[in-house]
């Protein structure tokens, strides 16, 4: 388990570094330059079809939230 945590933290740290570098090089885009970003697969949201997957995960796992889903309460917890 400790190995898993180490691995995940390394991935998280690498991702954070990449994002920090990326943010520092943000470019200003005109609407017509956003054709790829406007692709429905690029949406920064959960898929509609994922809704019930997120529900069962929140019942079977202690962690929840930061994913525009359930954070506790309102269940269905059986």
């Amino acid at each position, binding site marked *: 388990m400790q190995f898993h945590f180490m691995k995940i933290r390394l991935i998280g740290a690498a991702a954070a570094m990449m994002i920090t570098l990326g943010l520092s090089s943000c470019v200003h885009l005109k609407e017509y330059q956003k054709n790829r970003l406007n692709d429905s*697969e690029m949406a920064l949201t959960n898929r509609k079809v994922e809704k*019930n997957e997120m529900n069962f995960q929140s019942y079977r796992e202690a962690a929840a939230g930061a994913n525009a889903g359930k954070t506790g309460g309102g269940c269905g917890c059986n």
Partner: protein
Amino acid sequence: MKKVYLSILGFALVCRMGAYAQTHQDTIQKKPPFSLYTPVESSGSGTSYDARELHIDEINFVSSYYSQTGDHSPVTGGIGTENVTDMSNGLTVNLAWSGGYHNNNTLAVGLGFDHHTSASAAYVALNGGSNPSGTRIYPSLDWTLENPKTGGTFGIGAYYSGEYNYKSKGLDFHWSAKTADKNGEFGVKLQGYFDKVTMILPSEFVPKPAAVTTQPGTITITTASGNTEIVSVGGGVISNSKSSLPTSGRNTGTLSLSYSQIINSRLQIMFLGDVVAQQGYLGLPFHRVYFNTGKDTIEKLPSSRFKLPIGIRANYFVGDNLIFRTYYRYYLDNWGTRSNTASIELAYEITPFFSLSPFFRYYDQTAARYFAPYEAHTVNDQYYTSNYEYANLHTNFYGVGIRVAPPKGVFGWQNLHEMEIRYGHYSQSTNLASDVISVSFGFK
């Protein structure tokens, strides 16, 4: 030279005719095909804005079937079957209209219906005689007002969920604003859930009915659920009065913050963070715990919990057909749990209207300090649970999704503009395994 002048004149004439080519009304009247979309007409009332009447913008239907196996049920103290099946269905109707000052209004009306069977629920009664199935119904309403000039939104939502042993009411306020260049967006959501847990106890903890003789020839019986019966000595019921089972409250408040940013024409990211506070009865009354003495009791957890999850999404468009959808979350709470979640999905667009998306999600967590397995708690423990939701575990979830959204509609039906099918297999290091298949339909 004359030829040149005539050519220019002729070209100008053709162009002039072309300019009016689309101004004539088609004389052939075709019956429009059936559509949920209502053409928007100008109000013509002389108002300064172009009002749009209330119309159905979109209808979404999601259905899932979930099947689970496992052998650590909290109902039987961390041992015993965890087999579950669940059929979930949700319908959302988005109504839209425009109001004053060009603002766009959206009203999302939702209704969900689940039916589940849980093998362990039968063991709320020691003899396995309890009802192992249940249904849940959950309507919702959400109104959002958008300023199309700035892209900013404000909205409120209401939610209800009802099942036999759990009732919940929810309310939320949400607000978002875009940056001046519209490449970034900040969102805030404040959410409150006000729940009632029905105190259904394991059968061995239900107090025995108290029988008291009140008047000659009759006996008054008060049961654990609060029902009162007056029976004759001969056994016939003279009268009874039913009262509901007692309930305990559980309140959840959540502040959700998000910020999304376009990095370049292929990459966009979003930071997400929630601050969650819960208070009230946070266990479930039919979860047993067996002490190391062999004696059993009911799960006992603190009456407050504070959760802090933070996450990041990053979606990257590679080449012309491949999109990486990635997500990472770190979670901590004051019950001692720390967790990581990482997921990646590769959406490959075989055509612009058909994509295939294999995905993988990894999750791990440390145990809450109140968790111990079957017969591991001592009677001196202040809090105790054998619910494996709080155990030290890691999970894998993988599968594939298909998305179809052809311009002429799915199966040639213009109104069905999108369909998604997704299958996933989930496995926990605690031996719990499940399969879930979901389908969603989007109508316009």
